[in-house]
């Protein structure tokens, strides 16, 4: 099938003679065979968004349809990969065209020549259905890449291999209703279609991140969706990086969507060196990176988040817990707006297309914890976390609003906290997590029964501080009652010594739930004993400004294995000092 270009406007071309093609089919454009996708069909005219620079194209240039939708390659070799928005491996592109990305480059997403050691898990004679695990490849020391029966295939396993194979060589043979079918390790899946599963279930487990403000105050569930909106400089990317590093997930898919090139390089340099505390192996060995930086073609940016979530779903189907970070969904929305403008569609709010919110919802709905396909009962999850970059930090704009309608966790970053260098700058008064109640049983069981009580205590103190500081602003701190002074100081401790967390400090960067609980206990002990002391008439200053305060402040720097003991000692000291203050008063 062949058409001819009639119009070119930036990344959008219009070709005629395309009557036989299907919408969302991939096409090749011009002599250089640039990659594009049909996004509109009118009569025999097709509008095509081109994923590469279109300079040099002219009317009359040929357009071929490949007769297949935009798909990703799913096979061993994908872990540790770094891809552009349409899953071309960037390292390979480097070899092909040097430090700058050339045009019309063709590179397979995974190495088709490499031989992997396939270890069978199913045996001849087994009845298998789509999603069943045939065997696995140990892709590295961390990830066991499970090879599944592809979608739409079921029947009796009549042959299975063992040993070294490339991803295209058959490793199993299945007798289906329509005849025998060979299965290889490579699967292809169209990115704009969610991979099927049996059913969705409600999330009841948190994804532990080691970030105190998140785990304690605003936890995200496995299979949940969270948004991180904030103005520039408020630390969205650092939050995303921290989650990618420390989140309790088996696989991380990180999509750099229209963001800075240097940030992606940072991830590329840092992840192979950072060690996952659970496995002791480099973080890169559980990570897939999609990097479509802001200077790369805008249409590929639009595709990048779909490429990312399809890869995430693939690992979910193996029974893994996957987290996908998209930084930033606003840049994706802008790409959508740019294409919409070129198509001369009727604009909705602020020039964004009217289908913005339905597209966003579609994306987030692909996250979730599900019963995966296969004969056995197994679950897998995709947790989606997206940064949002609202202009001027103003959440009334369309992308933030559409996002907030969908996600259950909202970590609102605040510029004023960032100015004070309070990081992560998650505003505790503004943010919320709708999962907190649902996760309570899990926390009660795994983090200690007092954990949720302490959480409620911390939230209450912070709320009270907000209203008390209004009064302080009007009449000064001396006007407060001793009990209120204690509340104010406790809030200060929670803010500065608990919520504040230094991502670049070797110990502080990750805090286990156990240590979080101990730290909360310590703050709670301070609060109760200080209250007790002032109620006995102790002087506020003598009670609140004690030498142990410095130790409270440094508790977060205690290494994990010394934390509990160290904090117990601090609690004893708090009690002794406040008791001394009370005694003095008597």
């Amino acid at each position: 099938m062949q058409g001819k270009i009639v119009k070119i406007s930036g990344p959008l071309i219009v070709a005629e003679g395309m009557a036989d093609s299907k919408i969302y089919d991939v096409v090749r454009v011009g002599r250089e065979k640039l990659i594009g996708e049909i996004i509109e069909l009118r009569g025999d005219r097709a509008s095509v968004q081109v994923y590469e620079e279109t300079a040099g194209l002219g009317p009359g240039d040929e357009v071929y349809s490949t007769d297949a939708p935009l798909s990703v390659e799913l096979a061993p070799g994908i872990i540790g990969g770094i891809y552009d928005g349409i899953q071309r491996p960037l390292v390979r592109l480097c070899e092909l065209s040097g430090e700058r990305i050339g045009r019309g480059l063709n590179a397979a997403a995974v190495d088709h020549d490499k031989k992997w050691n396939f270890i069978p898990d199913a045996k001849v004679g087994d009845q298998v259905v789509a999603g069943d695990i045939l065997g696995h490849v140990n892709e590295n020391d961390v990830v066991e890449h499970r090879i599944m029966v592809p979608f739409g295939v079921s029947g009796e396993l009549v042959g299975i291999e063992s040993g070294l194979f490339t991803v295209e060589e058959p490793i199993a043979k299945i007798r289906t209703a329509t005849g025998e079918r060979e299965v290889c390790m490579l699967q292809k899946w169209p990115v704009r279609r969610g991979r099927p599963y049996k059913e969705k279930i409600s999330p009841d487990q948190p994804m532990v991140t080691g970030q105190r403000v998140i785990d304690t105050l605003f936890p995200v569930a496995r299979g949940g969706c969270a948004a991180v909106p904030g103005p520039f400089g408020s630390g969205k990317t650092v939050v995303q990086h921290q989650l990618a590093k420390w989140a309790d997930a088996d696989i991380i898919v990180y999509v750099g969507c229209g963001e800075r090139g240097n940030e992606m390089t940072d991830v590329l340099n840092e992840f192979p060196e950072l060690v996952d505390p659970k496995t002791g192996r480099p973080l890169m060995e559980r990570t897939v990176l999609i990097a479509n930086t802001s200077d790369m073609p805008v249409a590929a940016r639009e595709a990048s988040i779909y490429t990312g979530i399809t890869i995430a779903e693939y690992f979910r189907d193996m029974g893994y817990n996957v987290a996908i970070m998209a930084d930033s969904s606003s840049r994706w929305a802008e790409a959508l707006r740019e294409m919409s403008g070129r198509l001369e569609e009727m604009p909705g709010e602020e020039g964004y297309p009217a289908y913005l919110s339905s597209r966003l919802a579609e994306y987030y709905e692909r996250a979730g914890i599900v019963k995966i396909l296969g004969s056995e009962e197994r679950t897998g999850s995709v947790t989606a976390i997206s940064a949002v970059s609202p202009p001027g930090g103003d959440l009334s704009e369309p992308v933030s609003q559409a996002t907030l309608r969908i996600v259950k966790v909202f970590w609102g970053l605040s510029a004023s906290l960032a100015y004070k260098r309070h990081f992560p700058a998650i505003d505790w008064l503004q943010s919320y997590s709708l999962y907190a109640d649902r996760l309570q049983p899990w926390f009660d069981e795994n983090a200690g029964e007092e954990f949720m009580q302490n959480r409620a205590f911390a939230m209450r103190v912070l709320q009270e501080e907000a209203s008390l500081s209004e009064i302080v602003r009007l009449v000064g701190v001396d006007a407060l009652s001793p009990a209120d002074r204690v509340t104010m100081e406790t809030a200060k401790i929670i803010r500065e010594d608990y919520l504040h967390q230094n991502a670049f400090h070797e110990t502080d960067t990750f805090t286990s739930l156990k240590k979080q609980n101990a730290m909360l206990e310590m703050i709670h002990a301070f609060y109760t004993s200080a209250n007790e002391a002032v109620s006995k008439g102790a002087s506020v200053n003598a009670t609140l400004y004690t030498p142990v305060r410095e130790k409270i402040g440094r508790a977060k720097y205690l290494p994990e294995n010394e934390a509990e003991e160290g904090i117990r000692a601090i609690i004893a000291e708090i009690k002794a000092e406040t008791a001394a203050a009370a005694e003095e008063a008597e």
Partner: protein
Amino acid sequence: MQKEYKTIKEVVGPLLLVEGVEGVTYDELVEIQQSDGTVRSGKVLEIDGDKALVQLFESARGLQISTSKARFLGHSVELGVSRDMLGRVFDGMGRPKDGGAAIIPEKKMPIEGAPINPAARDYPNEFIQTGISAIDGLNTLVRGQKLPVFSMSGLPHAQFAAQIARQAKVLRSDAKFAVVFAAMGITYEEADYFVQDFRRTGAIERAVLFMNLADDPAVERISTPRMALTCAEYLAFELGMHVLVILTDITNYCEALREVSAARKEVPGRRGYPGYLYTDLAHIYERAGRIKGKEGSITQIPILTMPEDDKPHPIPDLTGYITEGQIILSRELYQKGVLPPVDVLPSLSRLKDKGVGKGKTREDHADTMNQLFAAYATGKDAKELAAILGDSALSETDKLYAKFAEAFEKEYVSQGFNTDRSVEETLDLGWKLLGMLPRSELKRIKDAYIEKYYPENAGDKEE
């Protein structure tokens, strides 16, 4: 094969419509020749069948449709680059403006530049000393970074930028350094200030200047930063120099972009700026950086004046989302006589953590930087509180903080445009100021550094 067309049908603002064309390609360079022989250039913005929409790089003034001819050159806009460009002044389209001879190009490079493969980038982590404490100490600049200056009308951003260009150096290195300066729509006086300052200090020898002044055609501004960056890429990645690119003023550039967008009747995004403003700016800013295996680097300092001192305005806003931080100048500090009037709290260098520390600046740098920020923020809050309730409402500690904030502005930030401080001087000054606070307040500094650097006689230690 080049064809000439006499079928120019429309001129609307900076746009031309040529009909009946054949074999024209997108983004191609176009020359419009008038009957008197003068030639203007433009590029193909859109092709629809046999109609080509051309954007002029120059003003359309005096263009006669009936007698002009359009010639399509078959390649996109290019700049001839050469080592000899150093020390020269060009106009916004890369033509010599200083009366000197034309450049004999060693190479022709398309000005659009292809995106750098993120896998080929080398992470910026080498400290650049600017000699300005507010930058070196708190918002450290590194090689390959893009760090814009957000200014306002009437603030001395020109002096500030000139100071950076003059003083910037890489420590412990004998690398070749160059400055590429692109002026977009700034006044003659401002441009002249830079030229004179470069001449006075001898910096002109290692500088290339591209000048599009306020009375030059606005559409030419769209090419100016691209010309400058193409030249910088040549110097950096082919000749191995460390290039500092100063772009001023981005606001004028964006307005030119808006003009073209409006002439095309595009659906506007915010405040009439085109929806692709982010992408367009990213194509400029992302050309900063370092490349694996190449010696040189491009560090960008774009300057923009915030319309109505308004940070959420689309231009500073989108810039902030692309660049690696921002240096914000404050009118309030300027009126107080703090020079340079850098508002350190909202200023930020995202790459600072990679450029400081042992072997780069000094081991205590990261910790003291955080502590200074926190202390200054607390001090400013205390001062605000005191302004409402009087000094008596402050606790003893808060009073110390208020005093600290005052001294910090006066001694640390306000150093004038001619003082060049080494990073050690900056760090020592930081400790001298932190000495005003009791040790127990210095929560963000490791104990070992407090032991080593905290001034003995807090408050009155002489340097």
